């Protein structure tokens, strides 16, 4: 127990320190970067809840982010903007205008409900079949978001979403997500799920209901994703369905994989490292574009470097930077063995 509290304290301190640093620098850009980073962290922690404990790769995660973002947006766009932003909206929703703070929660819940309804039968599948169906689910969600014009304004940008997400709100939710992910991991459900990850047959033999536990993990992950998406929506205030597709999936997945999918520490540290690298590379890209060495715009360099980093990490350290033990456990073990690494 002691070591879990230590883990939470260290990671929580890192999160708060990042937020404080961004605010004390007093530069608007850094504040924006930090806010986006906390949103990513919520998503990465959500993916960790499912992937880390069940061992199944899920591509559908970002789809649920989209569900949360659109739900929250539709319910909170002010009356006078609705006619313009969503001309074909169903009459019943036309006069609904709730506080964004409430709709962020609703966004998470709707994403969780959608996940609960769609995913139960899929949880029977393992390995490649599970991955292909989750990829199929992402495509289905994306197609629906892109074409359900009445609610999403189709492939066009949806605008007029009230701004509500501040640096500290995002930071607070990230802390809550951290505690949630850790609590699930150490709960009975989380431990049984990890038993099934390590040996499906043995876990089933001791009576673990694998399908149900995976389902619970998946719903919880979708809740995180929905809340993260809604927070993001109220931060950028206009977005299109393209934001919730393969590019974002790749970014979130790279954060989790580089940090280490099996640990909460990995999720948090991976987000910090990848965000830092991503922003640094972006500014290099912008610098090259400004200096004009190349005849055309430089784009895609960031993704190339990230992809190489992912492949390198997976070949050298397949479990990521924190493959099995949380940081608190590592530190306690170190103290017990007199400073020698375990």
């Amino acid at each position: 127990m002691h070591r879990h509290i230590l883990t939470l304290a260290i990671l929580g301190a890192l999160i708060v320190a990042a937020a404080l640093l961004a605010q004390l620098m007093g530069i608007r850009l850094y504040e924006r970067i930090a806010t986006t980073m906390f949103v990513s962290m919520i998503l990465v922690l959500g993916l960790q809840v499912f992937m880390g404990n069940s061992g199944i790769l899920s591509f559908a995660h970002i789809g649920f982010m989209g569900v949360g973002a659109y739900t929250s947006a539709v319910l909170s766009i002010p009356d006078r903007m609705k006619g313009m932003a969503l001309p074909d909206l169903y009459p019943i929703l036309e006069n609904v205008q709730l506080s964004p703070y409430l709709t962020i929660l609703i966004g998470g819940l709707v994403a969780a409900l959608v996940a609960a309804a769609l995913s139960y039968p899929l949880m029977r599948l393992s390995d490649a079949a599970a991955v292909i169906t989750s990829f199929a689910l992402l495509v289905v969600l994306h197609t629906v978001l892109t074409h359900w014009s009445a609610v999403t304004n189709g492939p066009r940008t949806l605008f007029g979403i009230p701004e509500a997400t501040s640096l500290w709100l995002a930071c607070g939710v990230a802390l809550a997500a951290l505690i949630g992910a850790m609590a699930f991991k150490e709960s009975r459900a989380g431990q049984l799920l990890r038993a099934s990850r390590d040996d499906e047959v043995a876990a089933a033999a001791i009576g673990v209901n694998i399908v149900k536990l995976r389902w619970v993990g998946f719903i919880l992950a979708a809740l995180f994703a929905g809340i993260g998406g809604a927070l993001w929506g109220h931060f950028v205030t206009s977005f299109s369905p393209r934001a919730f597709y393969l590019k974002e999936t790749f970014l979130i997945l790279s954060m989790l994989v580089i940090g280490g999918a099996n640990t909460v520490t990995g999720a948090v540290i991976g987000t910090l490292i990848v965000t830092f690298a991503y922003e640094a590379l972006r500014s290099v890209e912008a610098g090259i574009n400004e200096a004009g060495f190349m005849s055309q715009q430089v784009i895609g360099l960031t993704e190339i470097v990230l992809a190489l980093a992912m492949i390198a990490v997976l070949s050298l350290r397949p479990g990521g930077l924190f493959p099995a033990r949380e940081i608190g456990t590592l530190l306690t073990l170190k103290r017990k063995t007199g400073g020698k690494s375990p």
Partner: protein
Amino acid sequence: MDFAIQFIINVLSLGGAYALMALGLVLVYGILKLVNFAYGELIMVAGYTLHLVGGSPLPWLVMAAVAVVMAMVAGLATDYVAFRPVRAKSVTAVLITSFAFSTLLQNAALLFISPRPRSVPLPEIFSQSVMIAGMPTPMRDIITIVAAVVLLGLFAFLMQKTVLGIAMRAAATNFTMARMLGVPANLIISSAFAISGFLAGVVGILWIGRIGTVAPAIGLEPLLIAFIACVIGGMRSLQGAVLGGFILAFIDTTLNYTLSQDLLKFRDAFTFSLVILILLWRPEGLMKGPSSGQRT
């Protein structure tokens, strides 16, 4: 009657292309039990090669051959970069590395070529049409059907009669046993990737022949098609992949003719929901392959 002939030609030409795409994916899956997410990018590589050599005075067939060879090289590169270093470690790791490799190739195309679609050289014959039973039929549909028949025949011969084909089928059935009997593992896997690249290259040229341009994201649709076709037909069976390709083409063509404009936008959602349903009903697909599902 005219309508029936047109429908059949549509299904056969689309199905031929789909079957070849699925075959390339399932060939690798059968041996390694791993999905190659970078498969669509092999088609992109073939397209960009064609675009880059387009300015040269070479005859078109030579350019097409160069494009196919480059797709094979890219297939081998997938093996060396994304699969070999992590193959033995975990399923998830390989799926992620192949996804990363796909992003890598796509962004390389964005960075070094252009985010905008580029034209590819195509011979005259691709834009001509002939009259069949009183209906104008594009020549490229006929070419696709012929190419599919020839390639499927060649492929069947390779798998049934040659040492390489028999060794690959043995490896797909029971990899450990095949190795013990002296089948060189890495060579077989690399050959599978090269053949997969060959199929992707040919189908890429036929596919791009329909559109006329190549863009960095062009590989996504063929990848999705190959996924669906494999899942419908059976991930372990080569015949299943071909069957799945034709079934999918039949479903797509039927939906194209029957769905209203409003619903047609959701076609992908329909077909993917179908995949999910089929996997639930028969996790193995319609055709069962060799019984051993051990990953290697």
